[in-house]
């Protein structure tokens, strides 16, 4: 028996989620329709509310319900330091660690030579405008330590160094509580080249 049109449509809609193929989409659709209609309604409500109200913060480019997100609007944050991250998840990780009191800028991606994601796709224009008109003294490049993250950091550093700003890159090396014996070679290499005098 072929699925009714509406069920088919639901499956197709669900398969737009990352990592969800036709089979998982079918499982989700059947589950929602048969076992958890209440849950399905909650998804509908939450999704439509979020779509309606969530937008990009005009300062840091992350998701926000107001024009400016809570962090950017907070008077307690140090506006002279700007930390650049790839995604809102990275920003949240730093916030959870509560180690940084400055402001953020979220690129929403990285330069990706094989997917054709370029400077325009990661909001570089907005970043430069932000840096241009604010009291930022230091920019901390906290893109991921992947090849693409490094390429992105290099590109941004070059643009930012032309202005009167200190540009730094987050350190990388042995994790806290880590034992050298169990640390991979690449990390050890970084730890040694990035060593500090004490």
């Amino acid at each position, binding site marked *: 028996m072929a699925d009714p049109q509406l069920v088919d449509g639901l499956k197709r809609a669900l398969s737009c989620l990352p*990592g969800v193929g036709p089979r998982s989409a079918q499982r989700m659709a059947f589950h929602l329709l048969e076992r958890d209609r209440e849950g399905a309604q909650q998804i509908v409500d939450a999704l439509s509310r979020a779509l309606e109200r969530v937008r990009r913060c005009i300062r840091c480019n992350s998701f926000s319900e107001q024009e400016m997100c809570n962090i950017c609007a907070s008077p307690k944050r140090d506006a002279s330091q700007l930390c650049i991250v790839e995604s809102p998840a990275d920003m949240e990780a730093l916030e959870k660690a509560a180690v940084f009191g400055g402001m953020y800028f979220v690129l929403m991606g990285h330069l990706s030579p094989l997917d*054709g994601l370029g400077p325009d796709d990661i909001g570089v224009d907005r970043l430069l405008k932000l840096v241009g008109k604010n009291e930022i003294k230091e920019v901390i490049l906290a893109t991921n330590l992947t090849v693409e993250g490094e390429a992105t950091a290099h590109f941004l550093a070059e643009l930012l160094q032309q202005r009167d700003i200190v540009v730094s890159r987050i350190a990388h090396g042995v994790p806290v509580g880590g034992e050298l014996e169990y640390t991979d070679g690449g990390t050890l290499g970084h730890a040694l080249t990035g060593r500090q005098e004490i």
Partner: protein
Amino acid sequence: MRVEQQSAFVLQARDYRETSLLLEVFTREHGRLGLIAKGAKRAKSPFRGLLAPFQPLRIGWSGKGELGVVTGVEAVSSTLPLAGDRIFFAFYLNELVLRLLHRHDAHQKLFDDYCLSLEGLLVDSGWESILRIFEKRLLAELGYALLLDKTGVRDGELDADTLYRYIPDQGPVPVNGQESQGILLHGSTLKALAAESLQDDESLREAKQLMRSILGIYLNGKPLHSRRLYQQIIAFRNSVAV
């Protein structure tokens, strides 16, 4: 089928499901292939951090058909420390291999050329010449070698100072005024490309135009993302230069 300990580089890694990676790998003995690395992004995965471009690897996999499953990964040395713009040039090599090699066709010589080119990008300042020589060897390996040691008309001898038009499938033809097809270049550029020794700006520029036009044919006219990205970056730098 189970294969172990193959010299390889990851050309491209994409996220797959929660913690896995979908890889395009270039191996010495088995050519380009697609592999899944299950759980490679988990904190305790033994593959973590290794399955990235420009990391010399020994890799093992099992399975037949289009997608194999990674069974073992070992770093041969640390990741090649490509810095700055060199990363973009190295990605360009990856994209050429991705786009032009068929899966499961072994190209041992090209794999060695790829390794040499990456190493060249680490130390040598002549990155343009490294890219051109790799392109030339890639075309030859695919069976589309350029005609660089004689003209395409009755096997005539090449003259360094003469201007030629390079016609695909025919080769260099002396310019006779009427013909407008093909890429215009000097005999000296053809000779330099044949000898893999591109030195002066003129031969580098002409060789670039030649390669761009010939590769364009085999890429079916579809642009290379890495080249476009680099052009965008250059344009961006120029536009914000103070």
